[in-house]
């Protein structure tokens, strides 16, 4: 199959869906800038015009509300936030309006909007340019949250999100943008709510989200050389969460490590840990381990940044700690 980078896979999803469905449009800051949203918006303005590729003033609240309102009356907007941090201005339209709309009107209206927030970690960008806030959205009933980690899923989940009749928060990590992978030229969906086993194994289950999947695979390959067999699960959707895939793996390995790019407290890793404790406790042979960001704002200096973001080495250490613990 053809190789494509992650960001161009998103770009292709947008091209194909805008072509396929006239109710799809892209709105947000920087969609006509050559660098603001990476190359994800490449060629869209030229092809679909300023009426459906709408670059906007810096007004996250109103612009997100605009996308939500357009969705309520039958459009399928994709609203992009080049930095998810700025999307905090838009919590009302996302959480109060979009998430609740279908339920609070008794199912008589729906909000088929994609709320796309780009995570921009690293690069000494400090606390307000680098946050991973997926857990915040996953907490809210009525929102779906997806986090693709491969080019194939980046396209397939964007298409699925656009086709979904509910608000979908689509979160992608810039660290994944140059990652190449096989991507079909067709319009295809990756089912929201379905995770995938990236590497089969029997010794320990390693569940990861977004960029942490990349680090998890690296770690698992290194561990493989030492004879440790890690099963890597890419969650893909944080909500709904593929519980069955998780439980089946725990049954097999009896051990769980979660690698998530968000903070620890009340985060996705905490949610996964409690799901497993509630539903698959009898299969656990060891305590659950979480690899997350520390509960600390992002520092700028590279000297601190290196310690801040967990990488393959932290994952390897955790796996060894868990396996070396002589648990049954």
């Amino acid at each position, binding site marked *: 199959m053809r190789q494509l980078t992650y960001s161009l896979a998103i770009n292709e999803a947008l091209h194909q869906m805008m072509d396929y469905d006239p109710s799809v449009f892209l709105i947000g800051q920087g969609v006509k800038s050559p660098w603001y949203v990476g190359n994800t918006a490449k060629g869209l303005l030229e092809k679909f015009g300023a009426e459906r590729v709408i670059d906007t003033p810096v007004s996250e609240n109103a612009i997100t509300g605009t996308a939500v309102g357009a969705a309520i009356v039958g459009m399928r907007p994709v609203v992009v936030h080049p930095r998810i941090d700025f999307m905090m201005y838009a919590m009302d339209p996302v959480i109060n309006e979009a998430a609740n709309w279908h339920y609070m009107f008794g*199912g008589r209206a729906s909000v088929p909007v994609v709320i796309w927030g780009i995570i921009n970690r690293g690069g000494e960008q400090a606390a307000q340019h680098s946050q991973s806030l997926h857990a915040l959205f996953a907490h809210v009933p009525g929102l779906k949250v997806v986090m693709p980690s491969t080019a194939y899923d980046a396209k397939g989940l964007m298409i699925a999100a656009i086709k979904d009749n509910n608000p979908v928060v689509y979160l992608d990590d810039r660290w994944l943008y140059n990652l190449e992978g096989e991507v079909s030229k067709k319009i295809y969906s990756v089912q929201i709510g379905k995770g995938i086993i990236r590497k089969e194994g029997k010794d320990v289950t390693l569940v990861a989200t977004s960029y942490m999947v990349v680090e998890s695979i690296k770690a698992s390959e290194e561990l493989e050389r030492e004879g440790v067999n890690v099963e890597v699960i890419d969650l893909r959707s944080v909500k709904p969460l593929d519980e069955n895939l998780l439980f089946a793996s725990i049954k097999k390995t009896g051990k769980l490590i979660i690698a998530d790019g968000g903070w620890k407290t009340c985060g996705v890793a905490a949610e996964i840990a409690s799901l497993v404790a509630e539903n698959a406790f009898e299969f656990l042979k060891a305590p659950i381990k979480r690899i997350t960001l520390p509960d600390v704002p992002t520092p700028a200096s590279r000297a601190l940044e290196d310690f801040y973001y967990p990488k393959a080495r932290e994952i390897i250490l955790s796996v060894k700690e868990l396996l070396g613990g002589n648990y049954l």
Partner: protein
Amino acid sequence: MLSREFLKKLYSTMVRIRICEESFIEPILSGEIRCPVHLYSGEEAIATGVCLALSVKDYVFGTHRSHGHYLAKGGDMQGLIAEIYGKETGCSRGRGGSMHLISPEMGMVGSAPIVAGTISLALGAALASSIRREKRVTVSFFGDGATGEGVLYESLNFAALKRLPIIFVCENNFYATHMPIRECRPQNNIFKIGKPFGIQSHRVDGNDVLKVYEVSKNAVGLCRKGRGPVFIEFMTYRLRGHVGPDDNIQGTHTDIRSKEELEKWRKKDPVKKFEKFLIKNRILGEEELRRIKWEAEEEVKEAHRYAKMSHYPKPEELVKNVFKEVDA
């Protein structure tokens, strides 16, 4: 020159709203109605004059105080009253209550109580109409309290920038819940806030239904011709409390407004004012006015009976409709 039939329609719409609103007081005081109810009594001329200048296809977004908007736009009274009783037959199937009213087939897109929260949604509906090249107009109703929210200014800017077919309707009743306008704004000049954006702006007596209709009709005409947006401030007064008959549901006099002020505004009651006009100009006689009132009373009584007889939502359906199941 407005036809006798149309003038009668203006009157009967206002009377229906008033009688419907006042009918809630007894069941609120008896505890039969528990959800917060923000009565529209005293402001009927605005919903009536604005909505009767619209066609069924035009969109309306409302607030916490939207019974009048819903009824004037053609929403079904039984659905409204059943919703307030929390019944399955309510317009939002008992999931929304008084603050979440919807009638998609009549263009009442939805109401929500987050102050200024629906302004950006209305903006999105207007953008959708503009992308689809429809001649549809969207009205965003909000109160004077909403002028304290930043999203209003973001929305005014974007609407003006894109020349969207939207009418911003500010119902200035001089109080943001308990806060008198003089304590919220240094100057009492809400209508001027559209001007820096180049939006035509008007201040009109909101208790004079003919003036409301006239300014609204012109605004609708401009928006249909692609010469929107328009901003209108209607001066009015609520004859009841912020929530419930008085200021709170307890029923004791907790209104912070002086009795003298209330008395002054009772003399400007929009329904009575229009009645006088109709009689003085021999458009409708006393007998006809009585008949219109009687019909409204019967309709309201019947709607309460219907609501009380209706079933509550089933507990086993609590988790239904968090997401819309079928995708595009």
